[in-house]
């Protein structure tokens, strides 16, 4: 009966794996950078950046050869190329906004539009400037200038303009348009956006999908390549700027790394296992985590409808440690009376080790980072399945073990050092390592900037450097976002932002809509000030203007339309008047209607001000976020600091939580301080070695170090548990072999990634290489000494 129920259980397990595999096929996996960020506020910031279109932007800087010309005027080949690229992108379904040329004659239409709304657009500062133009001498000069202009070729068609605006009030408004450019250094030539050196032309577009995931980025890149190949004239090339090249560069680097390292990795892993165990059946132990992954993934999808690709990848990496239990079971199980039997000591070790591993993963569930929580859940499910599969399937395979060749037995005996009297020396070395770890740890800092895991190619870096040199003044910019349920409320808030920046004297390099499109409150205030200004000025202006005008040759009453017009109230300027006009390319980034964010109203409006992000603006940026409700400041500098603080707190919470629980489990398991120290010795070595290495190589930790550090804690404490349990049960050299195989398989599996080019993979590989590289010998040579074992019994 027990035999039958065992078989049924095995069948049920395999069915579970198959069902899990089937269900896992339907799981939706997504790449989303937001899953990597700690805290709701930071994820909200990134979501806001996505809504602003920042992560969807593609900039194409077209550049012509010296031979084609340049100088103050762009060569026609360059302009034609920009026109063709822009037109082709505008037709592509992959882009929703494409900016490459302002409509012909936009300047005249814009001036006419703005003139109509001068009363609500010009503010009290402008009225002061206008007051200066009304002085008798200034009027004389202006009339003289108007007369000469009208008799010059430049004034041939300007009679009506001069008649309606002899004081050039429209010019005041046109001057404010500079606020829309901010730090962008561009000139407009024939409607195209041309650099000051005349050799570059800018085309920018917004992708319909975010470009921080590799699949849409690849599709968009293919489309861009097609368009550029078709549209660029000879001697013109394009540089691609934005998140897209980074996404592709990272994705390609990872692919190249894996293609280069994985074959080597697999061969070494299989070779190590095969040489050590020497049966094909033993290779099943490697399959255990892979068999556990599909049902774990299916279970995970019950809790998370959307699974992050990052969680999936690293979750499976974490549950890879399940192979260790299979190795211990394979080597430790014995055949007795035709039945596979797991010795009591090994069962006890497995139980304690599983509990500590689960404790580590449960601690990871308390992370502020959603992807960490997901990968911990996946690892917990996967580990449970791994252990179940290993316990059910692996012990009977132990029967296939072959007798050990003499050479391998010699190597294994070499591993068993405690009996050789080197204990004192080893302990001294270990203490030195721990001291080094304490010193190193105090000098480390956490780099929460996701850019630290970015690997742009040399070409991408060169393109960005060239782009900044050509188009942008200064460095990074902060986004000050005013959100409102209506366009009016968003614009009113935006005005408060601009007023606060004005008050702080920090308008240099600011890109804002406020001077060109004030909110309704400020428009009403401007309109009232305008009315009272002209009501007060008209009685004296009328005769003074008449005198100055007729003195220059103008007809009596020539400027009556102007005088009659200034007291006419203007209608409020609505957003659509400007956004539907030629300024749209500049306004699209500064004002947009967006779908609601979670928990918000149905749709809302965002008015954005771009402010130079540096030490000189730090205090005003702080104040803006604090003092104006409804305004959010997205500053890369501040963002990095916040991520840093949150991630640092995450590390401490997780490591402290996991450490305490592991300590408690080990204490309960061994109830002896010496055994406890011996059990934790590999963990301490791993942490100390990682700290020393990180300190010697720059003193920086990132997210990958944290994740893999947790895996290393879980694995290295297992080494201690198996060794110390084995010590108490009468230390067997077989345990040395099992631990060595676990360590070797981990090192060959993940440690090889230390040679990767991508910083995330490299950090992952280095953490495992250094951590396990230190924990392994500690478990073999230090833990037995600490546990007081003098002799090892043969297998």
């Amino acid at each position: 009966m027990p035999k039958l129920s065992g078989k049924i259980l095995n069948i049920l397990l395999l069915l579970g794996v198959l069902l899990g595999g089937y269900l896992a096929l339907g799981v939706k996996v997504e790449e989303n950078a937001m899953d990597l960020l700690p805290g709701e506020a930071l994820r909200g910031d990134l979501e806001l950046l996505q809504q602003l279109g920042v992560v969807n932007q593609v900039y194409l800087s077209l550049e012509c050869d010296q031979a084609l010309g340049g100088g103050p005027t762009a060569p026609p080949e360059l302009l034609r190329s920009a026109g063709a690229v822009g037109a082709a992108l505008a037709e592509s379904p992959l882009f929703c906004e494409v900016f490459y040329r302002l409509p012909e004659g936009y300047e005249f239409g814009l001036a006419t539009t703005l003139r109509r709304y001068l009363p609500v657009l010009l503010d009290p500062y402008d009225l002061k400037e206008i007051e200066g133009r009304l002085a008798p001498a200034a009027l004389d000069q202006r009339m003289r200038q108007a007369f000469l202009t009208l008799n010059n070729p430049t004034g041939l068609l300007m009679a009506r303009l001069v008649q309606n605006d002899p004081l050039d009030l429209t010019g005041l408004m046109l001057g404010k348009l500079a606020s829309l450019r901010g730090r962008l250094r561009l000139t407009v030539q024939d409607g195209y956006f041309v650099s000051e050196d005349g050799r570059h032309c800018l085309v920018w577009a917004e992708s319909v999908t975010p470009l921080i995931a590799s699949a849409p980025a690849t599709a968009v890149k293919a489309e861009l390549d097609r368009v550029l190949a078709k549209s660029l004239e000879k001697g013109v090339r394009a540089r691609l700027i934005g998140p897209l090249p980074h996404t592709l560069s990272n994705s390609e680097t990872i692919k190249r790394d894996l293609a280069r390292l994985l074959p080597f990795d697999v061969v070494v892993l299989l070779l190590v296992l095969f040489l050590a165990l020497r049966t094909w059946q033993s290779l099943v132990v490697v399959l255990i985590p892979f068999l556990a992954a599909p049902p774990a993934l299916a279970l995970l999808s019950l809790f998370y409808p959307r699974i992050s690709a990052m969680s999936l990848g690293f979750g499976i990496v974490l549950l890879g440690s399940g192979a260790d239990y299979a190795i211990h079971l394979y080597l430790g199980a014995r055949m007795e009376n035709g039945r596979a039997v797991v010795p009591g000591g090994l069962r006890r070790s497995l139980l304690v080790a599983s509990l500590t591993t689960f404790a580590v993963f449960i601690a990871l569930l308390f992370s502020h980072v959603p992807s960490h929580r997901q990968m911990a859940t996946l690892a917990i499910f996967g580990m449970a399945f791994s252990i179940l599969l290993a316990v059910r399937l692996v012990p009977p395979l132990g029967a296939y073990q072959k007798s050990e060749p003499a050479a391998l037995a010699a190597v294994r005996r070499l591993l068993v050092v405690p009996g050789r009297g080197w204990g004192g020396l080893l302990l001294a070395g270990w203490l030195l390592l721990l001291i080094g770890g304490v010193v190193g740890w105090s000098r480390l800092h956490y780099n929460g900037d996701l850019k630290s895991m970015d690997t742009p190619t040399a070409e991408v870096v060169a393109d960005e450097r060239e782009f900044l040199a050509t188009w942008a003044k200064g460095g990074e910019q902060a986004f000050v976002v005013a959100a409102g349920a209506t366009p009016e409320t968003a614009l009113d808030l935006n005005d408060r932002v601009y007023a606060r920046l004005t008050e702080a004297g920090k308008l240099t390099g600011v890109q804002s809509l406020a001077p060109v499109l004030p909110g309704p409150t400020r428009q009403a205030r401007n309109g009232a000030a305008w009315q009272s200004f002209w009501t007060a000025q008209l009685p004296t202006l009328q005769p003074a203007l008449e005198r100055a005008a007729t003195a220059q040759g103008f007809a009596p009453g020539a400027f009556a339309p102007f005088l009659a017009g200034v007291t006419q109230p203007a209608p409020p300027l609505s957003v659509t008047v400007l956004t539907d006009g030629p300024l749209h390319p500049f306004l699209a980034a500064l004002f947009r209607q967006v779908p609601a964010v979670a928990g918000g109203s149905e749709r809302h409006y965002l008015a954005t001000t771009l402010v130079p992000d540096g030490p000189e603006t730090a205090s005003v940026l702080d104040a803006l976020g604090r003092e104006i409700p409804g305004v959010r400041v997205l500053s890369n500098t501040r963002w990095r600091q916040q991520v840093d603080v949150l991630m640092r707190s995450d590390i401490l919470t997780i490591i402290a939580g996991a450490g305490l629980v592991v300590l408690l489990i080990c204490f309960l398991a061994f109830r002896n301080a010496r055994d406890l120290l011996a059990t934790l010795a590999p963990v301490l070595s791993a942490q100390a070695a990682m700290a020393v290495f990180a300190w010697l190589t720059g003193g920086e930790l990132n997210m990958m170090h944290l994740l893999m550090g947790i895996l290393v804690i879980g694995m290295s404490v297992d080494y201690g548990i198996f060794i110390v349990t084995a010590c108490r049960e009468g230390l067997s050299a077989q345990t040395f072999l099992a631990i060595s195989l676990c360590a070797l398989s981990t090192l060959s599996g993940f440690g090889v990634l230390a040679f990767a080019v991508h910083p995330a993979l490299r950090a992952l590989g280095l953490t495992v290489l250094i951590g396990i590289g230190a924990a392994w010998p500690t478990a073999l040579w230090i833990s037995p000494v600490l546990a007081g074992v003098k002799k090892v019994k043969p297998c």
Partner: protein
Amino acid sequence: MNRTNLKFILTLVALVLLTAQPVLAESLDDFLTRVEARAAGTKSFACDFRQERRLAIFAKPVVFSGKLFLARPDRLRWEFTSPIASLLILDGKTGRRCGEGSPASEFNLERDPVMRLVAGQLRTWTNGNYRELLGEFGLELAAGPSLILKPRKEGLASFLNRIVVVFDPDSLQPVRVEIHEEGGDRTVISFSSYRLNPELAPALFSACRPGS
């Protein structure tokens, strides 16, 4: 008038209309070809001009006079000498202007929309490349011979009614340009004393000093 006579007259009118249309179109084309051919033989010229502006906002017509120098393909000097001296120079895609009321300054035609419009007009009147205007203006050939340019686009048509360029029948050089604005304002520029293919010193198109 009996029915047969009426039929005859209508047929005649129809025939005239049908045949006259291609003849007129061809004449315009021929005329433009002749102007272009003549212009191609003129590497440079200098002439005097007189500009008379009749604007509603002026108390009386205002007359300015000056000299025009042109060197193909793209250099032009438009100089007022009386009553107030001022100067406009176009050299390729750049230019300079100076004089009272217009401080000495350089400009780029690609970047300055007003100057681009002005330069386009001046060059077309003086260069003979009227076909270049076909996108923006409807062209009609009239007696004189003269070309009537009517703006096609709504924006320009809102303030410009038409431009009439009257040519010398022999030299095919423009002798008068009339600019009729919407609302009745009118400008007439008359050109005289043409000197064809003179040697023009390069300094004429670089030094921005009226009267230099």
